[in-house]
């Protein structure tokens, strides 16, 4: 049994009268990527802030790597890497200097900033000042900074935000490499395709509560509706028929369709996480 890296129990946090995180419970196993999905204001960032020590939990508790975050936050933070949603880099320093600063703060005896910057696609721009970077470049540097101390746990808040598809893909590969290295990854994202591709499990957060938490496959199984989209040719026109799978009459429907119609194409369809989120919470993941 893999030991859980992150254990959250009955965690709550409120800003004044607003309850941002409402009694949430979850565990994340070692080398697992947990995706936290939810619309803006759902409580994702607040949860990340509590777990990374930026806010103190008001109710409940959390342990990371077996250490209580309220008592051992310094030891926990030494094992943690954080990629913030908004860039917060030293603009008057170069990318390399930004990384080397954080390497020194983590007391890294050996650190190859060039290699890390190469990994995130900033090779050749190491000595440029961050003020001259584009938004995408800053985002890649943010990801690089979170990897400086080769942390046991990574908190990645929208790591591919603002990136073009190629760069975003390379970051995703990097995330998977980190998992292979042994890191546990807490990922918040709006991109349900990304969550589907990367995450071992996803948690749907809505109005501070976890509405669902399971593997994407299971969620789709549980809440999704599989179907076949069959394209037929009739009188020179193309028409589509949808056949819901997993029903008792499905085999007969399919047999009849194939026997009576001229079938041109057959495609299977699965529910998306977006659809599932809507189904569970009644809200869209993205506005």
């Amino acid at each position, binding site marked *: 049994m893999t030991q859980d890296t992150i254990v959250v129990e009955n965690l709550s946090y409120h800003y004044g009268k607003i309850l941002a995180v409402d009694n949430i419970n979850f565990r994340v196993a070692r080398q697992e990527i947990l995706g936290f999905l939810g619309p803006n204001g759902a409580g994702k960032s607040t949860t990340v802030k509590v777990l990374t020590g*930026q806010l103190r939990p008001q109710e409940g508790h959390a342990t990371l790597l077996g250490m209580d975050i309220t008592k051992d936050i310094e030891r926990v933070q030494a094992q943690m890497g954080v990629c913030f949603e908004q860039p*917060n*880099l030293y603009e008057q320093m170069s990318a390399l200097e930004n990384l080397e600063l954080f390497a020194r*703060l983590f*007391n890294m005896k050996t650190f190859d900033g060039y290699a890390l910057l190469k990994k995130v696609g900033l090779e050749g721009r190491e000595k440029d000042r961050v003020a001259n970077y584009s938004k995408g470049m800053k985002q890649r540097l943010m990801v690089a900074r979170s990897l400086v101390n080769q942390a046991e746990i990574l908190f990645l808040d929208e790591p591919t935000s603002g990136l073009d598809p190629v760069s975003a893909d390379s970051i995703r590969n990097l995330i998977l490499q980190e998992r292979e290295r042994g890191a546990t990854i807490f990922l918040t994202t709006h991109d349900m395709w990304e969550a589907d591709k990367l995450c071992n499990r996803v948690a749907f957060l809505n109005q501070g509560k976890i509405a669902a938490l399971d593997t994407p496959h299971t969620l789709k199984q549980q809440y999704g509706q599989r179907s076949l989209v069959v394209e037929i040719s009739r009188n020179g026109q193309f028409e589509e028929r949808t056949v819901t799978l997993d029903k008792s009459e499905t085999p007969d429907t399919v047999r009849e369709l194939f026997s009576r119609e001229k079938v041109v194409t057959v495609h299977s369809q699965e529910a998306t996480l977006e659809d599932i989120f809507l189904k569970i919470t009644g809200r869209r993941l993205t506005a």
Partner: protein
Amino acid sequence: MSAHLIMTLIKKDLKLFTRNQFYFIMTIVGLVLYIGMYFVMPKTMDETMKLGIYAPGMPLIENSLVNDEGIEAKSFSTLEELREAVLKNEYPVAIALPEDLLTRLAEGEKPIVTVYLSSSTTEEMKGAITALVKQLAFLATGQDMPLEMRSEVLGPDLLGAQIPWRDRLIPMMAIMILGTEILSLAALISTEVEQNTVSALLVTPLKLHHLFTAKAILGIGLAFIQVLLFMVVVGGLSHEILTMTLVLFIGSILVTGSGFLVASLARDMMGVTSWGMLLMIIFFIPALGGMMPGILSGWAKVLPSYHLVDAISRLSNYGASFNDISGHVLIMLGWSALFTISGVLTLRRRYR
């Protein structure tokens, strides 16, 4: 580990400070300008009135004037030379006595004494010279003065050994050098807040107290080095070196604490600018008292920088010792603690 974290942050801030070449150069140029201003000013205080005299054949009158410590009298052999000296403003005030002055006085007549004044002479000086000449006339006729003044000098009598203006300016310039560091330190903290790099730092082993310690050390260091350099060059450390160094160091702590206060009050760099400038001006006010004793009322002693100014002034200009200014040192430490603690607590609350 703590020392390592603090040193890392200090190195980072120093790098950023020197990287802003314009600001770095201006800081050095500023220091040079202050030092230059000091040396450009006269080394001595001229405490006399310049008075030209044309008194043909009356050396006694001339001598009595020359002997007065408040007058620098010069005798001219001709009236034309006297008038020329007045016109050129070399001797803005002059008196011409008629040749038959003594004869007329002996006969009970009133001789005409002409007072020549430069057109740029102030009203105050015109009145003063008129009064002076009249009294000289009374003296010359052997009349008794109507007042017998029993004088007591209060404080050390510096007649003939006045503190030159440039030395009086030392506390003010020291305060100006230190005061501008309020803005610098506040900006150092505020920039981290505005760019949100504080959040990034706080998820590392670095904690708020490391951050504040690093900023404080850098702020104190920069302020202290500048003001110490200034004082060394202008000779402000010629007396009670250790005490003066201590005072300057505590002054550096005071302005650093003020920087924390400004950073806690300001929400952004514009706030730093406005609050910082206001605090700087308030800091400067007691410095005027160092230049012109007596100009400020008792209320000025309430201002934190008053104690710094007075301590520097007394040490550099009046030969004071540590005992004389120990009270100031304690009060400055108190103010420093108050400002620093208030600033730090407010800043901490933002990140808790």
